[in-house]
């Protein structure tokens, strides 16, 4: 148990190191990083001052170590659109983005679990075929377009639900559905195929043979085992949700980290963008760690590996 978790922890740290390296290299690819960290129209003296303060005149390896030290303490410099630490700006937006992600995972599970289970237990039925078509739709739909069309139909045409911003739970409905669309399709698809596979196993036949009710076999024996690949997929989808939340937040003007990042890019606000990328990586690593713990609970084999 412990070795498994330690191994995952090391992997998580490696991921964060890799991301910090990417961010660091990107910063240097743009030319003079000091010039990027000062507001437009700064004097040469100001640039030189930043260069010295941030250590940009030192050897590149030393610079990376300095960068890492600063990153660990959350110091990415000041945003130069708003004169505040970039890190704080990102941190403020985290609850909003996590709320959106949680809502969309909720939507995905609420749709995908029943669809996956019914489709698998009634294979090749009309319901199964319709759900396969819906899954295909979900996987082929460009998120941003779906969001805009949802705005066109509901708030603009029908006058239901707000178009953008965030002032209460009703503002979360369309963004959560938009973001959860693809994930629902993926989860339903994996659950269906995994349940079909599990239902053909011998222990299911045994459970039925000893007279357990169909529902009991399904819930006690099949679904728990079929859940393992589903958990894996949910874990992998966290990355997608992070990327997708940038698009969804942009479409709906939802005040999360993604919208902040897009505004930062448009304003060439590199410190904010850096904090954002590092933060996203940290959140993904943390959530994946939780997924690994869920794994151990569901699959005893993992604990003794």
């Amino acid at each position, binding site marked *: 148990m412990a070795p498994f978790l330690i191994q995952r922890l090391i992997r998580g740290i490696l991921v964060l190191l890799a991301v910090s390296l990417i961010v660091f290299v990107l910063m240097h690819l743009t030319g003079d990083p000091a010039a990027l960290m000062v507001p437009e129209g700064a004097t040469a003296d100001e640039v030189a001052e930043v260069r010295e303060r941030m250590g940009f005149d030192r050897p590149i390896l030393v610079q990376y170590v300095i960068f890492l030290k600063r990153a660990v303490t959350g110091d990415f410099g000041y945003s130069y659109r708003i004169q505040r630490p970039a890190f704080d700006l990102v941190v403020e937006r985290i609850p909003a983005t996590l709320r959106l992600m949680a809502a969309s995972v909720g939507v995905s599970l609420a749709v995908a679990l029943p669809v996956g289970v019914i489709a698998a237990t009634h294979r090749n039925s009309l319901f199964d075929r319709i759900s396969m078509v819906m899954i295909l739709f979900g996987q082929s739909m460009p998120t*941003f377009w779906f969001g*805009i069309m949802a705005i066109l139909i509901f708030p603009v045409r029908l006058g239901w639900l707000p178009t953008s911003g965030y002032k209460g739970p009703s503002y979360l409905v369309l963004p959560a559905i938009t973001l959860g669309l693809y994930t629902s399709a993926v989860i339903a698809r994996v659950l269906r195929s995994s349940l079909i596979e599990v239902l053909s196993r011998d222990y299911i036949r045994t459970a039925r043979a000893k007279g357990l009710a169909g529902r009991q076999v399904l819930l006690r024996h099949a679904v728990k085992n079929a859940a393992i690949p589903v958990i894996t997929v949910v874990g992998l989808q966290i*990355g997608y949700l992070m990327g997708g939340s*940038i698009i969804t937040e942009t479409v709906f003007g939802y005040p999360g980290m993604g919208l902040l990042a897009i505004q930062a890019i448009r304003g060439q606000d590199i410190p904010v*963008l850096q904090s954002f990328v590092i933060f996203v990586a940290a959140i993904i690593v943390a959530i994946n760690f939780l997924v690994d713990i869920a794994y151990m609970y569901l699959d005893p084999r993992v604990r003794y590996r």
Partner: protein
Amino acid sequence: MTQSAAGTPSIVTLGQINQRDRPHPAVQTLRSLLRNKPAFASAIVLIVVTLCAVASGVIAPHDPDRQTLALRLVPPAWSDGGSWSHPLGTDALGRDLLSRLIYGARVSLIVGLSAVTIQALIGVSLGLIAGFRGGRLDSIIMAVTDIQYALPVLVVAIAIMAVLGPSMRNVIIVLGITGWVYYARLVRAQVLSLREQDFVEAAQAIGVKPGRIMFRHILPNATTQIIVVGSLQVAAMIISEASLSFLGLGIPPEIPSWGVMVAEGRTYISTGWWVCAFPGAAIFLTAMSVNLLGDWLREELDPSLKASGFADQ
């Protein structure tokens, strides 16, 4: 089996049966495509999209960039105020939407196909090396795939595009270098199972060089799966490109592309829904056709999936 004149069965080799009874493989594939209606419809959609991309200049009724401000936001031909000279209407600058859609097909196809080619080249090479060489090199490559898995492609792409700036070449590079992981894992797994097989051991025993074993004996056995993953990735890349372009981080606005068109149309959503609706529908339809055709291809190439009716895995 055929009967000879004397009534005794004559000996027919397998090769002869193949030649006599089975049509050419291409004909078989075509027949199977005709039987599968969704896949057939997808093939037609993709042929139309490809034609649009290849012959945009011939097919498009207007110059996609010509602005006629007097004809701003003309609705599609079938609605009030529309005209057949602009079948799908015009955008906010009075440019013909249908012509822009036709030219936009180029970007989607070029970026989708090039990005997948780059991904496959990187992924297959690294997968072959990891599986075949093993040891420390394998651990390093697998650690890199782990890292890449943990990072959302879109976040990495956004960070890189923000620095490189929007251009078609940059989009292709970014999507190409972020999506190779699937191929690497797949090929590595194939190599690991294939290199234990008798035919590979036999080749090693008679002194065939490792490079030749990789490319002549192992890679051909993994091509089927590489093609299937690649075909499904084309759809994902078309959507990714459109998403980046929508965010202003992909194709620059001077080039007509479906993602940029949706972004431009978004502002006029309440006065001109068509500007945004048609390019998005084009992305959706193209991606769905690629996915459907990819699923069909998977069933076609992997006969074990055929029995189940659906590609389940």
